[in-house]
């Protein structure tokens, strides 16, 4: 690829998979600002290392760079613990339930119900260790194949499979826990 073609390639690739990149950033970093900055970093890094793209799955190559930029950011964040805002605003399902009033209107209840379920799943996902969370997001939300996930995480496929299995088991257990909790706290 010529220099011009590889720059164009990265530009096109990044824009085509911008949502996936940003979503991964959100799930790894927990807030809009850091996720957007990480994607920005990733774009610059990708244009510099366009030559390292050796064919193969371009989306996985791009997401691997995004992930590396996210991890770098997480690293600096843990070294200087500034105030970091995380999406999980509910502080757990119990509080979410208390905060949300009962209502007669069906669609309002539906919306509350949805907000509640969303808060729950965000809470449980954020509670998962990052290696299980990222594998689950890439598989279930982004719908990547094992091979693509392995490329993004730079691990063998066997590791992808064991992380997916463990992540799923942990999330199922957590969800079962809150579902049981709901029953006992119910009216």
């Amino acid at each position, binding site marked *: 690829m*010529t220099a011009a*073609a590889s*720059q164009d390639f990265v530009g096109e690739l*990044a824009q085509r998979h*911008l949502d996936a990149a*940003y*979503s991964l950033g959100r799930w790894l970093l927990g807030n809009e600002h850091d*996720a957007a900055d990480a*994607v920005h970093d990733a774009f610059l890094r990708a244009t510099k290392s366009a030559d390292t793209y050796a064919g193969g799955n371009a989306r996985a190559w791009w997401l691997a760079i995004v992930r590396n930029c996210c991890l770098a950011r997480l690293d600096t964040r843990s070294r200087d613990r500034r105030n970091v805002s995380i999406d999980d605003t509910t502080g757990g399902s119990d509080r979410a339930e208390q905060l949300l009033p009962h209502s007669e209107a069906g669609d309002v209840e539906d919306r509350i119900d949805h907000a509640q379920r969303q808060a729950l799943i965000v809470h449980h996902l954020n509670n998962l260790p990052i290696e299980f969370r990222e594998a689950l997001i890439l598989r279930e939300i982004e719908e990547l*194949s094992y091979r693509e996930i392995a490329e993004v995480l730079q691990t063998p496929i066997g590791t992808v499979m064991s992380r997916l299995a463990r992540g799923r088991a942990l999330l199922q257990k957590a969800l079962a826990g809150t579902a049981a909790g709901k029953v006992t706290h119910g009216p």
Partner: protein
Amino acid sequence: MDHKTAQANLPLYFDGELDRAASREFEAHLDECADCRAALIGLDDLRRTLRDDAPRHTAPDLLRKRIEKLAAAQASRSESIPARRSHRPPRWLAYVASTLLAFVAGGVATSLWQGSPRNAETAEAPAGTQLARDLFASHWRALAATSPVDVVSTDRHTVKPWFEGKVGVAPVVRDFAEQGFVLVGGRIDYVGSARVPVLVYRHGQHLIDVFVLAENATANLAASSAQNGYRLEPLRLGDQPAAIVTDMDAAELEKFVRLFAS
């Protein structure tokens, strides 16, 4: 398949990673094992919960604009660098490039470019051959991408202005849904380093790319060619040269080409 093997295969089956024969065996076990059925339903519930309830984070407009700007800046910078064509790659490298380009699509490595020995001898392929290569490569790249289209539309009135806004070219867009060739949308793709509009059609399982080319582009493009089961057919779209790349068979392709002439 015994229960233990089935348990090990269950996530693979669920994730669509098991080959057809193994899937059949797994399904046979599934029919008689309630435990495996329950486990599968459990995985499916979890997936549905994640897909229905987890928020979808789409890139904020501000970020999209930032990246668009950066990409445009990069593109113009690299365009201003004069093309370096001073020295020719070693002969063996040209040969390797012309005979094999490993392209991984969906986990299946497909070897492409069984270039003709004539091309290998001359070391530099004629321009027409290069164009054919670039067209095939573009098509395969699109097949490997998540979506072969940037704008999804079955309405030609949407596709045409979209191109006009993106590349300043408004190709003739026609829909042949009634004849079995459905317009699914369009994208901007690279043919070599040129950005060109591509109209994307679907015919049954086949994806069809129609590349709209520059005025002088098809002058030295061979009448038609084939690579690894994919066919390339030049044609004219109104007064613009274009080329079809698809894996349809010759008869279907001919039918499609005739529709454009009508």
